[in-house]
């Protein structure tokens, strides 16, 4: 079996977001970059499936410029066999999906995993687009994925609960917790990651259907109004007459 896990290179979840150049550019100064948390769940489940099924290979893929290579090496350290970096800035979901689909068409993966969304642009678009470009199903958001031969049993989250479905490989899954626990790379994994293959390929096509013109920060909160602990009825009154939300 061949598994492809697509990963994003995104600011750490604790990052304080700021912009420069008159709110047209994300300020990367002092920002730590990580594998997207949802992608990290996808990667972890991919590694478990690989370990459970002899003869399986797992390739990690990232669309990004050279600066993302340390992030890709982390995926190799966690257990991916090899990696592909498509050398382009991932600014548009259609563009990124076309790049992934082009690789996937050539390599015929049985299973394509990625996070349900990136945590920078929160698009949640690429898995659905890749599936459509390959004419295979997309399931999202996947919380549990078990394989028996070529049949997958999946739990996906729905409003107020979850549903269980079955389908056959190949397909694309947008993953989220608790599909697997994040894998902490071992020292051995980190050492071997240095010598694993990280292939850089140039993008194909290049059409983009969206572009960000500017950014905006949410309005600052005016400050919390504290109510004495023995006066909850005062909170009720304020919610009713001042905030008008009840």
């Amino acid at each position, binding site marked *: 079996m061949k598994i492809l896990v697509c990963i994003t290179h995104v600011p750490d*979840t604790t990052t*304080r*977001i700021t*912009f420069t150049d008159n709110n047209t550019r994300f300020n990367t100064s002092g920002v730590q970059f990580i594998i997207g*948390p949802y992608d990290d769940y996808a990667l972890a489940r991919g590694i478990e499936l690989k370990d459970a099924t002899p003869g399986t290979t797992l390739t990690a893929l990232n669309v990004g410029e050279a600066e993302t290579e340390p992030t890709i090496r982390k995926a190799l350290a966690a257990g991916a066999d090899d990696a592909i970096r498509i050398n382009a800035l991932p600014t548009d*979901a*259609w563009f990124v*999906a076309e790049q992934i689909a082009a690789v996937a068409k050539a390599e015929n993966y049985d299973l394509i995993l990625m996070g349900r969304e990136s*945590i*920078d642009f*929160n*698009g*949640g*678009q690429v*898995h*659905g*687009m890749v*599936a*459509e470009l390959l004419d295979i*199903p997309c*399931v*999202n*958001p996947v*919380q549990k994925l078990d394989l028996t031969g070529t049949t997958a*049993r999946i739990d996906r*989250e*729905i*409003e*107020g*609960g*979850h*549903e*269980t*479905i*079955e*389908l056959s490989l190949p397909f694309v899954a947008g993953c989220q*917790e*608790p599909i697997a626990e994040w894998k902490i790379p071992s020292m051995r994994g980190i050492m071997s990651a240095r010598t694993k293959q990280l292939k850089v390929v140039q993008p194909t096509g290049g059409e983009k259907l*969206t572009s*960000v013109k*500017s*950014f*905006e920060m*949410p309005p600052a*909160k*005016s400050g*919390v*109004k*504290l*109510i004495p*602990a023995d006066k*909850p*009825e005062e*909170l*009720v*009154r304020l*919610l009713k007459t001042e*905030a008008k*939300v*009840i």
Partner: protein
Amino acid sequence: MSVLVFIESEEGAIRKSSLEAVSCAFALAQATGTELTAVSAGDADENTLAGLGAYGASKVLKVSDSRLATLSGKPVISILQQAVQQEGSKLVVFAISSLTDAVAPGLAARLKAGLATNVVAVPEISGSTLTAKRSIYTGKAFSFTEVSGDVKVITMKKNAVEASASAGKTASVQALAVNFSDTDFVLKHISTEKATGDVLLPEAEIVVSGGRGLKGPENWGMIEDLAKTLGAATACSKPVSDLNWRPHHEHVGQTGIKVSPNLYIAIGISGAIQHVAGISSSKVIVAINSDPEAPIFKAADYGIVGNAFEIVPKLTAAFKAAK
């Protein structure tokens, strides 16, 4: 030519988020001088669907097929692709949901349409360009994103546009016959597990949320009492769902559900940046916490510093008394 909006229903009733999407789509139809067509593949009956006229729909296309008892991405993509073709639509509007998260990108790819997700206001349209304000960095910022492509698709965040039943239109309900492909129904539905009778968290107007400060799942009774009093949904922070005190579908935050209710009440939640990211688009945030230094108070509009076990029952009683 018309603007298309996809609607979802729950036990025969149209979801509030779908009604918001209809109102948003109607504003876009008016801005572009076209009519609004709604598409339903769910269990809402003809009368209910005709009621969408009040929200601005001139026409509702209803798809009926025994294979659509539970909806999955591929058949819905086929439905919308054919509706777009029939209506000559240049713009398709969705409410974000567990279904449309897969449908909108699939439809966009099939039509090679520009797609903006997580949109928080009615987009601006100028000539052939649509500019959407999107929520990004998990609620920490917004982007103004230009969308191109002959057809454009947007998905609306909940509570971004108010559902308004004052459009005064009459909607005609028509059947849409769809040619499905063999590969549309490859997903086999096994079972659905759903909390019944409860308010669905992503749809809720009021959310009552508990954190690790509540010390254990056995203490959730007072959270549920407060939620019941307010007609609210219950939620929790990530540590609570990680500890299995509460189910994952209640986890609100960076890697959980992002909520945008009118009122979010955080009880015993310290307010880690990842939690605040998931609640930042709430209109009003109330924090109850014993630690006056807890970061949740920086995100909150109203706060009470004190012991939640004493405050929450009193607060519930005060809400009851004020009814």
